[in-house]
């Protein structure tokens, strides 16, 4: 697959791995190549192993694979960590003048390119640019026009002054030149470019962008991996629209601030990750009972407790569905691609306000930190619609007041949705409470009113199921005997896994579900298939449980909970194994 290039840079945290990777990914994207990135990182600021991987192709790429063509190794450990993915023909760029790499020898048929990264960087103006020297070397190896790097370097270093940009450009050129002139090697990587200009962004950024497009004006949050990018994206941008980011003292405060802002009439959001959700659960019940529209974004990481903060998992589904004491309606929306993160965020705000309840918007770590290329038009701003639901003004408030002129924020209605009066609305003054309340919002223990209010809140869900489109995304052959169902970031890996399966003659119908609650009823689809497999990144199969519950049948499960996202080729093997057919590797061993 010459057009499919898998590149990585690895070293210690603090080595500038991320920014180097991003610079290369952006250059590829501007050169009209599709890009899909992934990150291996540890929960520490300096030291430890970290890597940034870029898969790139002229065709769209949806996942990572077990393959590395070019590796920039700043440490020996980088090579060791990636040995499984390296292959005969891989090129390893390293600096033999570095103490830790001086004895390095490329294994097997691999090519080791010893480039004096540090020395050349110093020639260009400073040792700090050694990664950029390596990038230049990688460009030369792959036949990628080094000029594409120039714009990325401008973007990355422009605010530090033209001299810095120029020095970096020089560093890249020295790296390329060294390979061209000093190293006698030929490789067959010759990567194509196109005329397209793609945008390159990750799930967290797409969520932030969706929030701005949807009119979010208030964000309160507490920093936590891997959700912090949402806050960092909004900070500095939301202000342009008259909004604000408040860094709260903790998650309890963050959700309460967001609740206050929502009650004041702002589109409001908070974002956190698993442990933060636990802290927010207390107020979650208040949000739901007071019928306050709020978007709570949970960027999932490995749990429980503090688990593995920088590793992939989809383990919080039950917490979002069932978390909190008592029973309250909530929606759980789970985008499946980076672009979907944008669209579903917009939708989450509308759902929250139309039905006046908390909406969990959840992305898993792999989705949140993965950068992927898209046509800019996929983020169609013209298509964004803002629906604020049943808001009353001073003219219509009267329809919702009782004989004493008191406003009824929890009026019992047929569709379960009550009117909202933003504070400041004349004659709309009312209270809300986490206590069970009457139509006026006042505490009650009246048995009849209790039942009416519980039913009213639940009725919103029934209304929403009826009125909204809780559809799914579908791939492959609709008549295939095998049905694979998944949610979250697994969509990309499964999409590509289908190519591998196809090569082995296995036909698959694949359904990717972006709504956890409410969710599409898959009973018919499940009944039509011989084998049903649910794929997810957790140990117990929380989504599979729901599917079994809905369709009253047993399904096969593929669960991965080692902290690493599914890779396309690996997933294909898992599906084959689940279907009980020996895969090629096994067949060879037996022969």
């Amino acid at each position, binding site marked *: 697959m010459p057009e499919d290039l898998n590149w990585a840079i690895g070293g210690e945290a603090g080595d500038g791995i991320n920014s180097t990777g991003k610079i290369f990914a952006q250059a590829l994207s501007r050169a009209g190549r599709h890009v899909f990135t992934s990150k291996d990182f540890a929960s520490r600021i300096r030291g430890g192993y970290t890597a940034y991987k870029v898969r790139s192709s002229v065709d769209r790429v949806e996942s990572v694979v077990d393959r590395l063509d070019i590796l920039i190794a700043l440490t020996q450990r980088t090579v060791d960590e990636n040995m499984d993915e390296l292959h005969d023909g891989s090129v390893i760029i390293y600096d033999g003048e570095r103490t830790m790499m001086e004895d390095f020898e490329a294994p097997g048929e691999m090519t080791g390119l010893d480039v004096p990264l540090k020395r050349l960087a110093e020639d260009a103006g400073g040792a700090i640019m050694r990664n950029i020297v390596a990038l230049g070397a990688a460009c030369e190896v792959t036949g990628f026009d080094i000029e594409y790097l120039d714009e990325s370097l401008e973007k990355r270093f422009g605010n530090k002054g033209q001299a810095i940009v120029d020095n970096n450009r020089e560093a890249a050129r020295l790296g390329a030149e060294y390979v061209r002139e000093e190293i006698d090697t030929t490789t067959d990587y010759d990567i194509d470019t196109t005329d397209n200009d793609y945008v390159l962004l990750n799930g967290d950024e797409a969520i932030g962008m969706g929030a701005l*497009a949807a009119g979010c004006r*208030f964000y309160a949050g507490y920093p936590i991996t891997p959700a912090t990018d949402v806050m960092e994206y909004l900070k500095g941008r939301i202000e342009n629209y008259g909004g604000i980011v408040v860094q709260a003292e903790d998650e309890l405060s963050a959700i309460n601030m967001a609740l206050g802002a929502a009650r004041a009439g702002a589109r409001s959001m908070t974002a956190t990750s698993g442990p933060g959700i636990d802290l927010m659960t207390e107020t979650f019940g208040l949000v739901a009972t007071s019928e306050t529209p709020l978007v709570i974004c949970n960027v999932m990481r490995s749990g429980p407790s503090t688990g593995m903060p920088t590793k992939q998992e989809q383990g919080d589904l039950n917490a979002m569905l069932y978390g909190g004491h008592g029973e309250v309606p909530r929606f759980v929306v789970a985008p499946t691609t980076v672009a979907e993160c944008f669209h579903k965020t917009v939708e989450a705000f509308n759902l929250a306000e139309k039905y006046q309840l908390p909406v969990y918007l959840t992305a898993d770590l792999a989705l949140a930190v993965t950068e992927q290329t898209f046509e800019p038009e996929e983020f169609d701003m013209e298509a964004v619609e803002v629906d604020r639901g049943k808001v009353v003004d001073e003219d219509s408030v009267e329809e919702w007041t009782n004989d004493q002129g008191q406003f009824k924020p929890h009026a019992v209605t047929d569709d379960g949705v009550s009117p909202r009066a933003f504070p400041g609305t004349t004659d709309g003054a009312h209270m809300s409470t986490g206590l069970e309340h009457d139509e006026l919002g006042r505490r009650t223990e009246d048995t009849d009113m209790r039942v009416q209010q519980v039913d009213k809140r639940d009725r919103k869900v029934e209304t929403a199921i009826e009125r909204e489109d809780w559809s799914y995304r579908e791939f492959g052959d609709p008549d295939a005997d095998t049905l694979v169902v998944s949610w979250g970031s697994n969509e990309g890996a499964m999409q590509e896994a289908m190519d591998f399966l196809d090569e082995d003659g296995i036909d698959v119908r694949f359904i990717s579900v972006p709504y956890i609650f409410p969710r599409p009823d898959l009973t018919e689809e499940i009944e039509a298939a011989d084998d049903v497999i649910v794929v997810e990144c957790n140990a117990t199969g929380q989504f599979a449980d729901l599917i079994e519950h809905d369709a009253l049948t047993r399904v096969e499960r593929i669960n991965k909970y080692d902290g690493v996202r599914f890779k396309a080729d690996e997933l294909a093997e898992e599906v084959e194994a689940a279907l009980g057919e020996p895969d090629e590797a096994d067949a060879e061993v037996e022969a």
Partner: protein
Amino acid sequence: MSSEIRFTDFKSDKQPTWCPGCGDFGTMNGMMKALANTGNDPDNTFVVAGIGCSGKIGTYMHSYALHGVHGRALPVGTGVKIANPELEVMVAGGDGDGYSIGAGHFVHAVRRNVDMTYVVMDNRIYGLTKGQFSPTSREDFETSTSPDGTNQQPVNPLALALAAGGTFIAQSFSSDSQRHTEIVQEAIEHDGFGFVNVYSPCVTFNDVDTYDYFRDAIVDVGDEEFDHDRGDYDAAKDLIMDRDKEYQGVIYQDESSVGYEKREGVEAPMTDIPDGAPEDAMDLVREFY
């Protein structure tokens, strides 16, 4: 509308279930008078409360209100005020709500300095759960959960506020209606976080910190002969650290204070948003080229 507003307009038709004689009646009346005197009306006022006897206040007042969870009223008030700076935001709490479970939020609300008023009904006991010691209970105070006397020092809420960079720190006594109203009024008028700790006696469970006790003990720093300069940080510190007396009045005020939301450039209510994405929204996408 404000010229016609009387403090009774802030009363709801619910009869308080506080014990007869409870200090909270006076505390609440003063809050309502202060709101009316400062030209507010129920439709531009938002009252936030947490849990406990103090938490009931939203029910007895008529305004926009939220009765939230224990100890977290301040973050709610913060969100309300920032999202709509045109609203008058008043947060009510008790000593348990504010200085125990909510102590963290208190310190951070003080240092954030959002322009709102925080009134704490301090009766030095847990009333609604029927008589356990609170964070402001005196040392050796005997209660149902401290039969041998509390073995903990009381917190000094005013000192906490001063240490956290408070810009308006005051104390009042609920039965001194006129002074209490004046002090809350000044807190409302202060641009920033106006903090008023109110001695609001519990007649049922606290037989130490009684009306009689406070009447005798209170020294009003607003008295002419007392000659207190509220802008003098060191003088304020001395008063606050003097635990032998109970001071009433505005102990400290930083006249140059500007509310957080103003400093952050929030100007308009965040209620008005377009029907679709902002006009320049494609620029947000192009950033990712």
